[in-house]
């Protein structure tokens, strides 16, 4: 028996560790460092219909136990990802979760319809929560009704299960999660970054060219844990939790809060080997807390 095995809609995960979208590119950089087949799955960088150049620099600013970023969804566009990045990833025994982004509902639908047909794309992650683009993105994730409509529209065309990535920058995240579930989502991924700002002490102006950026890293973990805890009590579809995961203990926290798997984001920038390290640590952590398998931990904070 594989103690780390997790079964989710569309995804048979040999372990719950999934590099989070935007923190792992399309895998190429990390494939030089370790075998990507060791990962539970990979959430590839957000893909849009057309090529996106992204935002001007500076795009990142360090903060206490975290960082702000405003990359702006830079990506080579759907056609390129279908022809190059996804076929290249087929050499690894790892399911791909394709992060889908756009500015109009029709963009999301077009990308979802096509990218869900790729051999190794086993699920979609609808990015309705990117705080760093002028149009689309977060607009779809802060209004429950619109989030539900988009979910239904994408579900209607997708060949694979659809997970919706929620924004923490809302008054009531449970309401949005429920609406997304009612509209047919197969799962939730949460949380995206928290909107923040850092000023340059000399000029008094924001450091990041975009002004605001998305806060990530260990600093956001308590917010993410609280939100996973609240949402998991109210919905019955699974959650992939993320926000500040850097080690096996964090994984155990997210599962205990109610997540079924975890995304690892910013930690990949600090230690590019962090994902295989966490996977290796997990069995020992399970022993320490006296559990035989990871699935027994899911949602134990509620019980």
């Amino acid at each position, binding site marked *: 028996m594989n103690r780390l095995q997790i079964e989710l809609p569309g995804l048979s995960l040999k372990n719950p560790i999934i590099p989070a979208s935007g923190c792992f*590119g399309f895998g190429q950089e990390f494939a030089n460092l370790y075998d990507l087949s060791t990962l539970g799955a990979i959430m590839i960088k957000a893909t849009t219909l057309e090529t996106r150049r992204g935002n001007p620099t*500076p795009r990142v600013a*360090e903060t206490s136990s975290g960082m702000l970023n405003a*990359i702006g969804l*830079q990506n080579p566009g759907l056609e390129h990802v279908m022809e190059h990045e996804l076929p290249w990833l087929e050499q690894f025994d790892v399911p791909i979760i394709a992060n889908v982004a756009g500015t109009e509902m029709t963009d999301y639908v077009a990308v979802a319809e096509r990218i869900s047909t790729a051999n190794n794309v086993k699920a979609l992650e609808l990015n309705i929560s990117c705080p760093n683009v002028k149009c689309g993105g977060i607009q779809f994730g802060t209004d429950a009704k619109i989030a539900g409509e988009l979910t239904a529209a994408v579900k209607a065309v997708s060949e694979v299960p659809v997970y919706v990535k929620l924004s923490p920058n809302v008054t009531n995240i449970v309401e949005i999660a429920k609406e997304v579930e009612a509209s047919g989502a197969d799962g939730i991924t949460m949380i995206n970054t928290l909107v923040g700002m850092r000023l340059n002490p000399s000029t008094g102006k924001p450091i990041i060219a975009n002004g605001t950026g998305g806060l990530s890293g260990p600093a956001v973990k308590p917010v993410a844990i609280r939100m996973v805890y609240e949402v998991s009590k109210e919905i019955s579809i699974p959650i992939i939790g993320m926000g500040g995961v850097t080690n096996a203990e964090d994984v155990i926290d997210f599962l205990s809060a109610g997540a079924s798997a975890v995304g690892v984001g910013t930690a990949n920038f600090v*230690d590019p080997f962090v994902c295989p390290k966490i996977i290796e640590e997990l069995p020992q952590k399970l022993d320490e807390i006296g559990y035989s398998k990871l699935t027994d931990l899911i949602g134990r904070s509620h019980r």
Partner: protein
Amino acid sequence: MIQQEKMKVIHHRSIATNIYELVLHGQLVNEMKNPGQFVHIRVSDSYEPLLRRPISICSIDQENLECTLLYRAGGRGTQLLSLKQPGDMVDVLGPLGNGFPLDASNSGETALLIGGGIGVPPLYELASRLQQKGVRTIHVLGFQSIGDVFYEEQFKALGETHIVTADGSYGSKGFVTDLLMQEKPEFDVFYSCGPTPMLKAIEQTYPDKLGFLSFEERMGCGIGACYACVCETTDAVSQDYLKVCSDGPVFKRGVVAL
């Protein structure tokens, strides 16, 4: 190949105002190929600060598995690094990026090396390697003031060296380009590392020469995954953006929009 290693501090000393010379020992030195590559250093075991600090490699001693890094203790992270003592271990990721192409200069030719401030260090290993293959090197090194000057003797031992300070407190006064206009050195290829305005001025000073420029930008991961340190390209290149960390930090002149 990129590796992560806890490297041991062998020497660590201040050599100019806020400038430190750090000598590290470890197997990672075997992986260092080209002058101009850099390492990404975690200055603390905690999440404070969270990100690594990119530092260029100043010299490589593969026989003794030692490398020398020169850095400016400017911000919080590098100030913490400056507290490391001989015997301490430092978490290093590297070597990263592509360095200066040595094959752009041939034996018997002359290379002009132009450094500004903390852009000077990678030129030292470059000068040594070029000398080894029979290339004559001329060094023009610019600093703010007399207290900021470092490695003058080391560069002099390798060839003709000019020091420039912005305030004129040491060497000639002005910018490196002022000295270049005045001295008009004869050379075949130029290599430069320093602040972007300096790189721009050099490109404009030598519109017809082959040259290579090393850039600096705020970095996240250092390996090309986070898309933080992109730079805009000129029309001569098909991509709109290149990543300073993994496509660079050294680019041929004319590639990056300045």
